[in-house]
């Protein structure tokens, strides 16, 4: 790329992602967290009593649980819980057509490159701005299939029985401190129910943003794929650059019933002041197949370990994770595969790159219970360190207790080989471009699983990271 092309990319990015809208909120809860604030949130949303009680019990759990101390958790000690805004409601309600969406929010999404025309290619878009879903459009096809795709608040309102049946059955509030926090103050996120046999052919998408200084994002997503159904859900995240820190503590629960297939893709590009702590877990029943495709480019600290619990015979799981850590960033990612039924199998591939003092850590668990016989697992994690200041840590654990279980794990850490660079440069590429090409090749296994627009965007984001022009 020429110097001009790179400069253009930078400007484009700054405009594209670095803008801030002046806050226009209808309701902003006061700072800090207590029972009154939690009750207010529930009341503002018009929730049933059981959800309010659930939130309040979760708040007790959050306050009682100590901050976790394993791994890089001590770095989270800087989060100032008392000084965050936990709820911001930006408009009077959810609009049904693009025209009804408030102008400033529409502009946000125009700038993010999500023009109305995308509707032709994508099945549905839910846009989350601040804490509430503000724009929602579901194509007739989905409605005809009986597929429910709503923001989580609407899901609770319109389908309380389904929600009550599955909500927090995969991630209980006691699971960890940030799941408890999310359970107390969750707002927004997606609710998807796919009925038996329905195959959703185009991906369902959602966009999230944090705008106000010192606000938190606590979306809660619940996806239930009923027997023999299939669905692909994509989320992309972004936030403008701010001086004060922001917290994103989300919970995603996936339930793939018998024979169902769920693929969940994320490209996370939070700005470098966001603490991104997410609990993502899936439960795969008999013959089901769950895929996590998880890309982490942004944020100050990300801790995210997508997991699949294979609880039914013949279930399968694939976890594909990629992470890029530049200066000042920590990407602590990985995944967990838990085999609790016979004839199950899973793969986990993790690719990470660190540069300019960035740190990546891979944390993984493969656990095979005694009742899981005839299990095959393979894990591969590769880390590329682009310079001397960067760091990579790998902490995979395997606990193998089943019968006729084959588990394989391989990991490698290295730099770009001199021979590789030499070869590319001898073909006329400048060193920067050669490195970029190797980096792209390194992430290829991941990029090829993304829809085209995302793959292109991923490439651009990585180019920018490589130039050191971000953060």
């Amino acid at each position, binding site marked *: 790329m020429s110097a001009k092309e790179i400069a253009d990319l930078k400007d484009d990015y700054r405009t594209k992602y670095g803008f801030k809208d002046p806050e226009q909120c209808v309701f902003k809860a006061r700072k800090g967290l207590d029972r009154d604030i939690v009750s207010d949130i529930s009341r503002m949303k018009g929730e049933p009593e059981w959800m309010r009680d659930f939130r309040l019990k979760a708040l007790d759990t959050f306050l009682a649980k100590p901050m976790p101390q394993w791994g890089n958790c001590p770095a989270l000690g800087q989060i100032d819980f008392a000084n965050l805004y936990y709820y911001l409601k930006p408009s009077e309600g959810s609009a049904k057509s693009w025209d009804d969406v408030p102008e400033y929010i529409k502009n946000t999404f125009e700038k993010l490159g999500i023009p109305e025309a995308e509707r032709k290619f994508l099945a549905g878009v839910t846009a989350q701005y601040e804490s509430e879903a503000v724009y929602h459009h579901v194509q007739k096809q989905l409605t005809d299939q009986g597929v429910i795709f709503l923001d989580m608040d609407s899901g609770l309102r319109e389908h309380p029985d389904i929600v009550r049946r599955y909500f927090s059955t995969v991630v*209980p509030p006691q699971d960890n401190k940030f799941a408890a926090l999310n359970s107390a103050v969750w707002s927004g996120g997606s609710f998807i129910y796919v009925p038996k046999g329905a195959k959703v052919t185009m991906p369902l998408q959602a966009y999230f943003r944090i705008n106000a200084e010192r606000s938190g994002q606590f979306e809660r997503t619940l996806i239930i794929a009923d027997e023999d159904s299939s669905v692909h859900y994509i989320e992309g995240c972004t936030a403008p650059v701010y001086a004060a820190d922001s917290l994103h503590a989300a919970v995603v629960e996936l339930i793939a019933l018998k024979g169902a297939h769920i693929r969940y893709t994320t490209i996370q590009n939070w700005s470098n002041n966001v603490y991104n702590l997410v609990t993502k877990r899936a439960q795969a029943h008999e013959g089901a197949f769950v895929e996590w495709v998880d890309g982490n480019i942004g944020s100050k600290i990300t801790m995210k370990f997508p997991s699949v*619990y294979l609880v039914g015979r013949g279930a399968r799981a694939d976890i594909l994770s990629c992470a890029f850590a530049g200066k000042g960033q920590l990407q602590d990612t990985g995944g967990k595969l*838990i085999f609790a039924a016979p004839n199950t199998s899973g793969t986990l591939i993790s690719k990470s790159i660190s540069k300019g003092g960035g740190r990546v850590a891979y944390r993984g668990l493969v656990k095979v219970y005694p009742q899981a016989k005839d299990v095959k697992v393979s894990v591969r994690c590769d880390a590329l360190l682009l310079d001397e200041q960067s760091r990579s840590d790998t902490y995979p654990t395997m606990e193998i207790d089943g019968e006729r279980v084959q588990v394989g794990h391989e990991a490698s850490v290295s730099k770009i080989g001199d021979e590789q660079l030499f070869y590319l440069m001898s073909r006329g590429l400048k060193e920067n471009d050669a490195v970029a090409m190797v980096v792209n090749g390194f992430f290829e296994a991941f990029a090829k699983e993304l829809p085209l627009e995302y793959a292109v965007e991923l490439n651009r984001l990585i180019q920018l990271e490589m130039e050191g022009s971000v953060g």
Partner: protein
Amino acid sequence: MILNAGKAGDLSEGRLRVLEAGGVRVAVCNVGGRFYAVENRCTHDDGSLGEGAMENGLIRCPRHGALFDPATGAAVRLPAAAPVRVFPVRLEGETLLVEVDDAS
């Protein structure tokens, strides 16, 4: 091996108690006047079930919120995915007795 789990009257509805003898740890609970005993070790991450709480007749592990059915040992909610061992409990007069086999 028979473990003495104390007086039935001292273990009220919805409560849990932990016993340890001969290297075996057991959690005993009272659900609607019926008594059950499970191995005091959550199959998810070795949490002490007896130090948790009862939720709708199920044992909830204090560490990560897993739920077990005390009657069958079945894992009812994640993050537990494997059953916990159960032991037969009987009442002799006022005293609860738990029968533990040695295969632990």
